[in-house]
């Protein structure tokens, strides 16, 4: 069984098996930076997931803020759709400033 199948087994937010549900952990290392994915923990609810994430992932002041998200709530794009999703942007080089030639004498642009 893949992790996807396993995660989809239960209804939203519902515990089915004997194993505690999985939560993905995100840490903001300091103000001004976005939260970044670091791993996951098992917990029965989001409060204990936060506590576990704090114990497992921040033993050396790695962060000042934590997010935990039930893994089954994450919808991810399929790697097979990578081309379809992201390649159309490839030939649109006119979306980048370097596409345009501006005379040297023009300043501040």
């Amino acid at each position, binding site marked *: *069984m*893949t*992790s*996807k*199948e*396993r995660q989809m087994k239960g209804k939203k*937010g*519902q*515990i089915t098996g*004997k*194993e*505690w549900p*999985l939560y993905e952990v995100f840490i903001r290392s300091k103000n001004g930076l976005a939260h970044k994915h*670091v*791993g*996951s*923990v*098992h917990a*029965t*609810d989001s409060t*204990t997931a936060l506590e576990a994430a704090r114990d*497992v*992932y921040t*033993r*050396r002041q790695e962060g000042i803020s934590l997010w935990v998200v039930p893994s089954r709530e994450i919808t*991810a794009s*399929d*790697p*097979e759709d990578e081309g379809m999703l992201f390649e159309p942007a490839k030939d649109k080089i006119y979306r980048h400033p370097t596409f345009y030639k501006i005379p040297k004498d023009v300043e501040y642009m």
Partner: protein
Amino acid sequence: MTKSGKPKSTTAMTESITGKDSPEAKAFQKKIDADITIEPKDWMPEAYRHTLIRQMSQHAHSEIVGMLPEGNWIGRAPSLRRKMILLAKVQDEAGHGLYLYSATETLGISRDQMIEQLHSGSAKYSSIFNYPTLTWADMGAIGWLVDGAAIMNQVPLCRTSFGPYARAMVRICKEESFHQRQGYEIMIAMAHGSPAQKVMAQSAIDRWWWPSLMMFGPPDADSPHSAQSLKWKIKRTSNDTLRQKFIDVTVPQAEFLGLEVPDPDLKWNKKRDHYDFGEIDWDEFYQVISGNGPCNKERLDARIKAWEDGKWVRDAALAYEQKKQAAAA
């Protein structure tokens, strides 16, 4: 060389590489060759997935079982400073185990399945943790030699081809360095201490030296999974290369301590620019791996007992959550 206890699964992997020439498999190897990291949802050969599950879960189990020999000394640390340090180190090892279980789960195996495999004996852990910790000097030797060898093994894994594994290894490597340094600091204190302490320090290196060299795994010629793992960049450096590197950096550290490395054949080879060293007793290695080490039973019993003793906590937390959800429905 006898290999009485050697596991027999050496051909299982090669057999399971079916469809090696399929377009997907070719595209996969091309990505690997171009150093493009493989992520959990990407297509991968089943044998790659299985090799990773085996290696990563074994690595996770080693971190977890590895807490036991050192946990044994937390209550008997000689000072509050040493006790705090040892406690922090053992907590780190728990963390390492958890990072690695979490990374392995992305391959589709559940944590309970992995723990089941450890307890049933179908998954292995590093044989080094089946040796006893007899004196406080063993805490020094473990940090210095065992964590030292682990670092040598783990640094190349920060570039392993599977993304979650590589990222977990980066975190782990950042944390390991303190483990080795605190161990060496203990060795300095013991080696420069009373005559009795010096004897303890020497006895520790005598007992831990050879098992530490075995941590790099069998010689390349006898390492069944190595070639494929190197091709897949699961492994980045061969066992013998890492072992030699470890010996070369560690021998001068032993000399600094004024301790003897228990190998009469050890000597610097100017031509090779490496230390030559004596024959490793691989029979012992295979014996310990297959369950006949001094502490195999004790270690597994301790893990199983911890799991069983914790069952009511796991059940109670689940029951409480189910009750809350029922009330909210």
